[in-house]
C-alpha cells in the first residue's frame, strides 16, 4: 500500500517558493503555495523559502498571519531555507528583528557579505550518498546553537544544515541544486510525524 502524499505548503509571500514546490512535487508530496493564513489549516508540513525576511515579516503583520504561522511552526514539521531559517530562529542579529523562536539558534543576517560573496560549495554532510552541493546566496550564518540541535553540515566552523526534532533548516538553497537529498530528508520527517 502506498502511503498518502503529505500535504506540504510552501510559504509564498515572496522568494524562491516555486523551486521548492516543484522539488516537493517531484518527490511525491502534495505541494501547495500558501499566501493566506487560512491555507495553513489543512497542511501536514510547511517550507519557508529564501527571499527577504523583512518582506516576509511585513506581510505577516496582516490578517493574523504571524500568530497562525507561529502556532504552526511550534506544532508541525517545518523546513526553513535562508530567510526561512532566519524566521524560525530564536534570535536574529545584523540587525535584530522579530522571529518565531521555533529553533534554539541565533542567526546573523548577510553574514558572508553581499551578492559578490555568494558562492557554491561542495562538502561532506551526515547525509548518505557523498558530498552535497550547497548554494549560498547573501547567506546568513548560524552563530549559536543549543544542545538539542543536530548539525548535519558545516561551512568552516558554522552549522549550515541543522535539525531540531521536526524542524529542519539550512542557510543554503537545496532547492537551487539538482540534489534532492535534503528535501527527501524533510519528507521523511513529515511522513514519520504523520504515522
Amino acid at each position: 500500500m502506498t502511503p498518502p502524499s503529505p500535504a506540504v505548503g510552501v510559504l509564498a509571500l515572496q522568494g524562491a517558493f516555486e523551486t521548492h514546490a516543484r522539488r516537493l512535487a517531484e518527490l511525491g508530496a502534495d505541494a501547495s503555495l500558501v499566501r493566506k493564513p487560512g491555507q495553513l489549516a489543512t497542511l501536514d508540513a510547511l517550507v519557508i523559502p529564501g527571499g527577504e525576511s523583512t518582506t516576509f515579516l511585513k506581510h505577516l503583520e496582516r490578517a493574523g498571519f504571524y500568530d497562525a504561522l507561529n502556532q504552526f511552526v511550534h506544532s508541525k514539521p517545518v523546513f526553513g531555507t535562508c530567510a526561512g531559517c532566519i524566521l524560525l530562529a530564536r534570535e536574529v542579529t545584523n540587525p535584530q528583528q522579530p522571529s518565531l523562536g521555533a529553533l534554539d539558534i541565533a542567526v546573523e543576517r548577510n553574514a558572508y557579505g553581499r551578492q559578490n560573496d555568494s558562492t557554491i560549495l561542495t562538502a561532506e554532510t551526515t547525509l548518505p550518498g557523498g558530498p552535497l552541493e550547497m548554494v549560498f546566496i547573501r547567506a546568513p550564518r548560524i552563530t549559536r546553537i543549543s544542545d538539542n540541535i543536530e548539525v548535519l553540515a558545516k561551512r568552516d566552523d558554522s552549522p549550515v544544515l541543522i535539525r531540531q526534532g521536526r524542524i529542519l533548516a539550512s542557510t543554503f538553497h537545496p532547492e537551487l541544486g539538482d540534489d534532492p537529498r535534503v528535501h527527501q530528508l524533510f519528507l521523511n520527517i513529515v511522513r514519520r510525524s504523520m504515522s
Partner: protein
Amino acid sequence: MTENNGFGKEHDSGAGLRLKTGLAEMLKGGVIMDVMNVAQARIAEESGAVAVMALERVPAMIRAEGGVARMASPRLIKEIMAACTIPVMAKARIGHFAEAQILQSLGVDFIDESEVLTPADEQHHIDKHAFTTPFVCGAKNLGEALRRISEGAAMIRTKGEPGTGDVVHAVTHMRTIVREIKALTVLREDELYAAAKNLQAPYELVRMVAKAGKLPVPNFSAGGIATPADASLMMQLGAETIFVGSGIFMKEGGTPLDIEKSDDERKEAISRARAIVLATLHYDDPKIVAEASEAVIGNMKGLAAAAIEEKNLMQTRGW
C-alpha cells in the same frame, strides 16, 4: 568548470550563472523600488520592498529635467548600501562597462544596464559575462530579451515607458514577450532555425525557450507601473516581480514628495509603497487589491505615454 550552454561565453561558468539567477529567484513575487536617498531607502525597506534601486534621479525627474543621465555617485550608492539590509541595485548606462566595473567594485547586488540613463554606446551592450555581479536588462520583445541573456543578463524586465506612470507600454512589452514565447512552443524542431533568424537571437536560446515555454531567467516588469492595480495587472500578465520607479516618491512632474520635512508627504509615500507591496503579493485577489488601493494617499500625476514624441521615448534605446 566551464560550459557553453547557449548563454554565450565559456568564461561565465554554469556555477556563476546559477548564483546570478539564484538571487533573481529570491526577489520573485516582490517589489523593487527606485530610491534617491537614505530616507527613501529606509521607507522602501520598512514597507516590504525586496530590493532598492539606488539612483540620483528617478525617471520622471530625468524626463522633466533633461541633460545626460549617468550612473549615480558612488557616495550615494554606498550610503544606501549602508542603510539597507535588502539587496541594493544600481544603474549603468547601456554599453558603459566602466560604470558597471565601478558598481561591481562597490559591491552592489545587481546592476541594471538601463535605457533610463543616456546610452553610452549606440551599438554594443555590456558583455555581462565578464562580471560576477548579476545584471538585469530591459526588453520590449523576445528577441531583445534573448540577445541580453546571450550577453549574460540574469534577469529580464519589460522596458515599458519609464517615468510616465502610464502602464500601457509595460503591458505591450509583456504581452509581446509572452505571445512570442507561446508561438515558439508550437513550432517543429526544424522550424526553430528560421525562428532564431527572425528573432535575431542565438539558436540555442531559442531552442531552450521553445522547449521550456519560458525564459531561462526570471522575467520581471518595469516602466510606468504606478498603482496597486498596475502591479496586479502586470503580475496577472506573467510578470514575476514588479519594479516601481517614479510611482512612490514623486508628486507631480519632476518634483519628489518631501518625506523629510513634511509629515503628510512622508505618509503619502509610505502608503503608496505599502499598497503596491500588498497588491503584488495578492495580485489575483481583487478584494485585497481594492483594500490596497483604498489605503493609497494621492498618486503620481503621470504623463500619457502616447503624448511623448517618438524621439523622447526611453524604450527605443538599445536594440
